[in-house]
Structures are given as C-alpha cells and as structure tokens.
C-alpha cells in the first residue's frame, strides 16, 4: 500500500513564527488532504489539494504530484494553531484515505 511520511514529527514555535510541514508519499495519488486535529480531538479539513497550490488565510498548501510530496505553510502562527496536522492520501476511485502519523505543533505565547 501507499506509505505516507510526515516531517517533522514534533514542532515547537513561538507565536508569530512561520513553519513548513512536509508530507511525502510513495506512489501516485489522486486525492490528498490536510487536516488539523485540535487539542479537543476535532478533525478539521484544511485543504483538498491533489496538485497545485491553495491558500486560506494564514495557511497555504502546495502539492507537487510528480515528485510525490506536499507542503503545508503556516504563517504568523497563533496558539490556536496548536494540535496535530495530518496529511492523508488516496488513489483510484475510492475515497479511503491513508493517513500519515502527523506533525504535532505546539505554539507558545
């Protein structure tokens, strides 16, 4: 099956700093999504981005499908950005996402 690796596994930032989270995947995919799991356990969909670049406020994401990686950028981080960020991919006509192990982000005030 497809392997999904995320880096770094843990990240500690000071409020206001910028960061880049990376997701590598081992095979071609036609579905890639980024999620944020907040400290209360809620999984929030950030981006559906199998290719290209998208931006939403302080967050943006880029997927280079031919090189099998995706990046999530967080600018001017806030304490509410803390949590675990997951990358998930799928291939074929099924939507069954395969998740990476996540990047745990802690933003300090």
């Amino acid at each position, binding site marked *: 099956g497809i392997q999904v690796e995320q880096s770094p596994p843990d990240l500690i930032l000071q409020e206001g700093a910028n960061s880049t989270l990376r997701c590598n995947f081992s095979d071609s995919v036609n579905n890639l999504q980024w999620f944020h799991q907040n400290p209360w356990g809620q999984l929030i969909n950030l981006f559906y981005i199998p290719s290209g670049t998208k931006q939403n406020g302080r967050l943006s994401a880029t997927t280079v499908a031919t090189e099998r990686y995706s990046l999530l950028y967080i600018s001017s981080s806030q304490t509410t950005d803390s949590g675990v960020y997951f990358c998930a991919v799928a291939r074929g006509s099924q*939507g069954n996402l395969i998740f990476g*192990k996540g990047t745990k982000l802690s933003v300090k005030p």
Partner: protein
Amino acid sequence: DTAVSQTPKYLVTQMGNDKSIKCEQNLGHDTMYWYKQDSKKFLKIMFSYNNKELIINETVPNRFSPKSPDKAHLNLHINSLELGDSAVYFCASSTRERIYGNTIYFGEGSWLTVV
C-alpha cells in the same frame, strides 16, 4: 446544524459487552466511513460504504460491523468488546460526484474505553 454527528461522544463499557456508535450526516453525501484512532494518534480506515458497496479493511476483526439503515446513517456495531478496542472512532462522509478525489468531513469522534 452539525454536518457529521456521532453518538455517544464518550462510552465506557466492560469487556465482552456489545455496543453501537451511531453516525448521521446531513450533507447529502453518498459515501460514509469509519476510522479508528489509536492511543498513538494513528488514524486508520475501517470501512467505507455507499449504497452500492461496502469495503472492509481486511485488518478489522469481524466483531466490528457497519449497518446503514439509509443513505444518511452508518452505525458501527461492536460485539464482544476487548481491551484493545479502546480508541477514538471517527465517522466521516464524502461525495463521489467527482470520481477522482473528494473532500471528506469528519464527525467529532467517539471515545470508547473498554475496562
């Protein structure tokens, strides 16, 4: 107006019991899923279901079974609960209007503790 809702949010039960977790989506999606998140936060697909087919992850014990009374509901039944079943179970839904890729929406999770 919660998009994907699960009940109960917390469930503590004894080994050997049978329990169910209910899931409802009001998004009009045609595919629903169950995911399991273990103590290390690893998320893994258990089932996906639309009105045509059920796809089961082969690693899921047959003590787990999904039941879909209609398109908007996919309930999870667990028989003979074991300690290792303790986890957070997430229901999710998506639409397959686009064959290649779809955005998936998760419920808030159900924390199951088996004692």
